[in-house]
């Protein structure tokens, strides 16, 4: 699918397959096109090119009110002139269901989101968390094939967010509805999603599980998005996707794994190294397996579950490495070696 506003592409040649019953997170910074993509699925924007297939039926020309897809809005968009029950029943009334059926389904939804006592309340007399639940119940009441959620937890404060994430997962498991969640928060995507699609400047950069994105990033952007990472740039040696390749860096040749095709031999590329995968050892002698870099320890920060070390490498750059808490602490100023295991070092295009 492609969507252009004027000549500016907001979503560029995105191709995506959703599995029934999964939670799929579209992750990216604001303005990356993830919301536009979601609005195309809902029918509020028409794609400039491409198709949207649901069970083999093309939805591209179908107006929003005839799509078997519902959306939970970032602002929740609760109708202020209706009660909680009225909001939830709104979609059911549009289907022309019998009164008893509507009442039963509304009660069922209220139970699902644990708001039984508040059916008659107006939305402006609810807390943020309660409003979020009403919005969820309203969108789920019609039993959509796919539920679209635009920053579903964006308006909640931090403490509420974690509990709500678990709840959202729980509800999705119980109903088996396919969820498409748009978020800018990598942590939220990792907690919620079965699969994450990272978007950057209108393009879908990489799709995969949180583990895949974390351990086998396809681009420098993805590597930096999820968690902390050391990046060392250099020139690629021979080889191709799926192989271990040498990267000629200012710190000397380092071996990394090229998961997705980082480029031709001689092209510039980046070695992405997670701090917890760098093997920190005291002393100035190498240990033998893989390459190791000599460095001088700058400082150590105790973080409870781990200790974060910053070390200055031979060319002056600072690398970060973590060691599990409880290991004997190393003193700043000490000479260390940072072991680079090739299987944990991902090669990505520069």
């Amino acid at each position, binding site marked *: 699918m492609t969507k252009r506003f004027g000549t500016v592409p907001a979503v560029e040649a995105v191709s995506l397959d959703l599995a029934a019953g999964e939670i799929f997170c579209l992750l990216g910074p604001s303005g990356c096109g993830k919301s536009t993509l979601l609005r195309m699925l809902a029918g509020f924007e028409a794609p400039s090119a491409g198709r949207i297939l649901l069970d083999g039926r093309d939805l591209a020309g179908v107006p929003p009110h005839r799509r078997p897809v519902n959306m939970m*809005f970032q*602002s929740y968009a609760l109708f202020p002139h209706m009660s909680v029950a009225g909001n939830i029943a709104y*979609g059911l009334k549009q*289907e022309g269901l019998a009164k008893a059926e509507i009442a039963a389904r509304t009660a069922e939804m209220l139970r699902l989101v644990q708001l039984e006592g508040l059916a008659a309340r107006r939305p402006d007399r609810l807390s943020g968390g309660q409003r979020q639940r009403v919005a969820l119940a*309203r969108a789920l009441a019609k039993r959509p094939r796919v539920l679209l959620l635009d920053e579903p937890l964006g308006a909640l404060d931090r403490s509420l967010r974690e509990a709500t994430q678990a709840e959202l997962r729980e509800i999705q498991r119980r109903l088996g509805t396919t969820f498409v969640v748009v978020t800018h928060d990598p942590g939220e995507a990792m907690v919620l999603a079965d699969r994450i699609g990272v978007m950057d400047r209108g393009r879908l950069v990489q799709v995969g599980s949180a583990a895949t994105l974390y351990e086998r990033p396809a681009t420098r952007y993805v590597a930096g998005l999820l968690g902390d990472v050391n990046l060392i740039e250099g020139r690629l040696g021979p080889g191709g996707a799926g192989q271990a390749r040498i990267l000629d860096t200012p710190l000397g040749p380092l071996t990394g794994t090229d998961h997705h095709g980082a480029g031709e031999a001689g092209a510039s590329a980046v070695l992405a190294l997670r701090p917890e995968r760098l093997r920190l050892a005291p002393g100035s002698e190498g240990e033998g397996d893989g390459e190791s870099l000599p460095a001088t320890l700058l400082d150590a920060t105790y973080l409870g579950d781990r200790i974060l070390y910053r070390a200055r490498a031979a060319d002056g750059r600072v690398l970060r490495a973590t060691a599990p808490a409880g290991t004997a602490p190393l003193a700043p100023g000490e000479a260390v070696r940072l072991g680079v295991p090739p299987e944990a070092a991902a090669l990505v295009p520069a």
Partner: protein
Amino acid sequence: MSTRLHPLALAALALGFAFLYGPILVLVVYSFNASRLVTVWGGFSTRWYASLAADGALVTATLVTLKVAFASASLATVLGTLAALALDRRGRFPGRTLFTGLLVAPMVMPEVIIGLSLLLLFVALGVDRGLWTIVAAHATFTLCFVAVVVQARLATLDRSLLEAAADLGAPPARVFLTVTLPLILPAVIAGFLLAFTLSMDDLVIASFVSGPGATTLPMRLYSQVRLGVSPEINAISTLLIATVSLGVLAASLLTARRG
């Protein structure tokens, strides 16, 4: 910041209000004057209010005014709301600015010109002048007030509410009836009340476009005043002021209400 007013500021405020409302107050007070002489106080009485009902011409004029106000306000409300909806569409259409300008222009156009041009139009079309030409003329010049009031309300309406309704399966017409209209209703009613009161106290335009048998209350009052002010005029004017004030007050309360 002090909430106390400086004595001078207070005096200026009192003078300002006295200037604005003094004459009206005098009129209201004298409408309860027992004396037949307008300028001489002869004690409290409501006799002029009682004698109003007996004045056939005045009662007829009042009924005409109410009919015109109701019909023209209804027409202006429907058309003004539609205009506001057209102007509020997110997608700008070609000529939108021009359309806005044309719609709001009657607000500042001299009434004499509106009246005269409508008269010329009705003559050119060969329309018999009477109650319905006043209705049409009043709807024309009150429509813009309705449009402005409703548009202000629409501007604060959250777009995603309408999208949510569509998303939940409501076709466009039902989105309007179940979400848009209930949410802008206070503004629509306020617009109606404004149009109603504007129509009620209009003299100039009505004088141009009315015909035989369709004399509105302001026209009737004006012609009577030329023969001399009677206490009855004070009484009917007081009633007119009360009605208009109530209408404007209700309209402003409705626009100020949130949610």
